[in-house]
């Protein structure tokens, strides 16, 4: 080697040696930075090499590049070139991984502003999902515990998907429910079992007692490794049939599937089963296939991080999200039937009423102000009406009494008069959730009266339900896609099913005996109600 190359070789070797040494002390240096508050933010975690490289190599110029990308993004949006926005947002997040305010804005912009520029519901849903994914898959990757991101994510679930302000809201709910059904499979609600399932391949190996059977089956079916099999599982949402059979024969299907679903929930959707359990314990059984439960989940996670005095306002916004979502979940938070957007049907989750009430009161107590008094009174009104409609008269009485204690003027009428008055007002300006709940409530009452052999009263309830149904459908004419109710026959079927589930066993049996002898108007058109499954 010529002499002139020696200095270069020496320098390169020195550089490699120093980098090697640096890697040993970097962890300690980061710890010192945090301990002594030497930087405003913690060192970046979980960053892929490209992000780590750009954040170091570009230094202060990252901001300039980020600004330019931001301006380009705005320009592209103005020109209707939305195809670039996902890529630009991705780069902005990678260039400024700690600037979570910008990530939250970009996600909100996609979910709200970009989505509504499309007329097709499918296109709109794609953009709402992009917004969610930007926070969940990108921003949270670098800022795993950032409450601002949690809050924004919760807001998209609660407001964009949960409310009926967007023409496509029912499409969102339907598609989201399908996605969740795919995610949970047959293990919906079994959070404790899922929580115990291993999250890493090595731990799965330990659960399978280090037997190579599972990996032999994978190899025999052409999978190069566990990750490839996992990808296939996520595409199909079930274990491929042939593999499933072989796993079943080997007696290891359940631990494998639980591990796959646990990993899918945590790694992709960032849904921690322990949190699902915690929230179910706190509020009652939430419907995790509907957006409200997810709004509560993210708001709770955000709230947990905001505990200092300066975060009061942010914490309050999370609390608001929680009690509003709980209220929605109480009023229409159980998925009854799902085929497509026309057939999406939900029903009140009455068991949540006390949890919602407690959430409102806790918030009032915590902030020592009447921030939410108006909202609480509205909830009490809704609770009384809803409980009454669904036959929970004693509970409705309890809630009207609570209302009287708080606002005697608003709750001055007796229970029946109060409910009738509210119902009349509701149907004029009802959201479809309200209208759906009202019609279902009357149908349930009708079946209850039928079961106790009060045929005349039952008939009058059916007539009222049908009148309300027709009245509401006329009222929303022209906007049926957004606010229309499911077909009448379907609502009858689901209400009858609910009645059988909810009534005490003897009453349910009585109803089954009486029904065939009753007037035809009580008998829904033939056909069974399918469970909410997705093929």
């Amino acid at each position, binding site marked *: 080697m010529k002499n002139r190359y020696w200095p270069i070789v020496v320098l390169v070797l020195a550089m490699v040696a120093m980098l090697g040494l640096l890697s040993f002390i970097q962890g300690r240096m980061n710890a010192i930075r945090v301990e002594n508050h030497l930087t405003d933010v913690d060192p970046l975690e979980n960053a892929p090499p490209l992000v780590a490289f750009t954040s170091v190599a570009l230094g202060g110029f990252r901001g300039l590049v980020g600004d330019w990308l931001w301006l380009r993004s705005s320009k592209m949006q103005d020109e209707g*070139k939305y*195809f670039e*926005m996902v*890529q630009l947002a991705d780069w902005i997040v990678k260039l400024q991984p700690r600037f979570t305010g910008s990530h939250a804005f970009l996600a909100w912009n996609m979910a709200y502003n970009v989505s*509504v*520029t499309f007329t097709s519901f499918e296109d709109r849903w794609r953009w709402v999902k992009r917004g969610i994914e930007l926070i969940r898959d990108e921003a949270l990757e670098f800022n795993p515990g950032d409450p601002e991101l949690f809050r924004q994510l919760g807001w998209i679930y609660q407001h964009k998907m949960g409310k009926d302000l967007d*023409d496509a809201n029912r499409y969102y709910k339907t598609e989201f429910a399908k996605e969740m059904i795919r995610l949970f499979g047959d293990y919906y609600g079994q959070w404790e079992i899922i929580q115990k399932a291993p999250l890493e391949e090595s731990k799965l190996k330990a659960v399978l007692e280090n037997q190579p059977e599972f990996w032999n089956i994978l190899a025999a079916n052409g999978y190069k490794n566990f990750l490839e099999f996992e990808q296939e599982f996520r595409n199909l949402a079930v274990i491929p049939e042939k593999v499933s059979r072989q796993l079943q024969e080997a007696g290891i299907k359940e631990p494998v599937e639980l591990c796959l679903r646990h990993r899918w929930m945590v790694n992709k959707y960032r849904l921690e089963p322990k949190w699902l359990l915690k929230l179910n314990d706190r509020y009652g059984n939430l419907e995790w296939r509907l957006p409200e439960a997810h709004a509560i989940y993210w708001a709770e996670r955000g709230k947990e991080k905001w505990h200092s005095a300066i975060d009061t306002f942010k914490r309050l916004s999370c609390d608001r999200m929680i009690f509003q979502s709980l209220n929605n979940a109480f009023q229409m938070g159980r998925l009854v039937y799902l085929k497509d957007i026309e057939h999406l049907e939900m029903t009140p989750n009455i068991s949540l009423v006390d949890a919602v009430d407690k959430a409102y009161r806790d918030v009032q107590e915590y902030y020592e102000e009447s921030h939410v008094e108006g909202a609480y009174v509205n909830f009490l009104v809704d609770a009384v009406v809803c409980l009454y409609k669904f036959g929970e008269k004693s509970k409705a009485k309890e809630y009207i009494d609570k209302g009287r204690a708080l606002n005697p003027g608003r709750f001055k009428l007796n229970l029946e008069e109060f409910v009738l008055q509210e119902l009349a007002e509701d149907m004029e300006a009802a959201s479809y959730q309200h209208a759906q709940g009202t019609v279902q409530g009357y149908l349930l009452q009708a079946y209850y009266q039928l079961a106790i052999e009060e045929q005349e009263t039952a008939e009058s309830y059916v007539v009222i339900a049908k009148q309300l149904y027709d009245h509401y459908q006329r009222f929303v004419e022209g906007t049926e896609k957004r606010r229309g109710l499911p077909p009448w026959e379907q609502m009858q079927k689901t209400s009858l099913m609910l009645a059988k589930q909810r009534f005490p066993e003897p009453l349910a049996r009585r109803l089954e005996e009486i029904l065939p002898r009753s007037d035809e108007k009580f008998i829904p058109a033939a056909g069974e109600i399918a469970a909410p499954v997705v093929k």
Partner: protein
Amino acid sequence: MIGEGCKIHYGKLYYKVYKSANRKATNRQVVSVKAFLAIMIQTIRSAVRSKVFHVLFLVIMLAVFLLPTTVSGDGTAAGLVQISLTYSLNVVVALISTTTLWLACSLLSREIEAYNIHLVVSKPCPRWLVWLGKWAGVFVMHAVILLVSAAVIFALINWRLGRGNFSEAEIARLKMETMVGRRAFLPQRPDFESEVNQEYRRRLASGELEAGHNEGTVKGEIRRSVIAKEGEVKPGDMKTWTYPNVSTSSDDDMLYIRYRMYSGDSTDTNQKMIPCLWGFLLPAEKSQVSAPFAMQDFRIAGGSFQEMPVRAAAVVDREQNNQVVLRFVNLPQEMWGGVEAVPAVFQAADRPVILCRVAGFFSNYARSMVLALFQIAFLAALGCAVGSAFSTPVAAFAAISYLVIGMSVQAAIGAPLRNEDGSYRYKNLMEESMHKFAQVVRVLVVSVDDLDATSDLAKGNLVEYSRIGRAFLNLIVIRTGLIAGLGVWILTKRELGTVIKR
């Protein structure tokens, strides 16, 4: 002097260059195509040796191979193609333009500074041929790089599309809307002048106008108001557009109506959802009903671009000069669902146009590459011209300044606010005079943005032959011709012996 009195015999495929008649016959030289080719090849060789070129070429290769395979769109097939085209082609064309300009600026000026050119000009080779050979060398080399890069990008996009797992419906939509060349048909322009005259006469008759008023000023005001109102549709009102000569190759073709409307005011950032009806006149049903419009209801977000497909067979009236009639109804207040109804505003630039497929994607792609080639030809000429006059750094500075002025002027022209009728709204006299100045400079300076066809290509808009023809005339014949003439003149007149070697 060498180069005077040149004569070109095209039929014999070689040039004969004559010296002036008063020179001796022995000095007459015949410079064959070989001389030109020799200069061109030498230019390419020395370009390939340039270190700056090596770096830029490496970056070009990275852009060609990495960008189409790494950028991700919005998850749709159309998004993938659009973003790949936008990023790959833009970056590659920009990099190739940079190398073109740099090499064009540096090769000639360095040869002058290094006295290499003295060896060439002492041979029987006119200076215009030296200049042309340099230009051709730079152009041909970059044209080849561009075409190869374009072919690779085209192949990579198709490859990625094939691996994308997209549904058949999505691919079909992509081929109808994005990977296609769609011609834009504009609506008939309303007769503003007769409307203006009519309104003027009415005001005159009603005595609204003062005696001694300036007719031109009043008519100008009326015209602005008429044009502004032309794009406004109040709640409960409707508007009809007529498109003549919508020629389609077959009745199975799809037409796409592209438009953007604003709710209330185009400057309002809080745009509303507009409940409306869109429909077409159905020629087949004209005999049965007087105005057989098929209408469909929509709720459209204000300020967003929209595309609405319709089958050509249903709406093109073959008996009426291939006419299409489109109607829009802004629904009345009762249909706005509690929101205050506002007018729908169509700006002149965003009014509905009908897009119809007239060429395939490959053809459109090739056309946009022709425009890119024009750009390279122009930049090579610009670089060679300034390289003839200055040293490399000064030449590069002069060429970049020219381009920066072109880009800045473009931005300056678009800077003032516009009225709804498309006219400019100046804040003061200063702004107006600066804007007029920018418009004059714009005529003189070429903006490279003019040649960017990638945006149209990505949207599936046809790059028309007429556009290519205009670009050829304006950019190649006039601008490049003038700049080339200037460069040749400078090189011919320049006293090369006075250049000081550093």
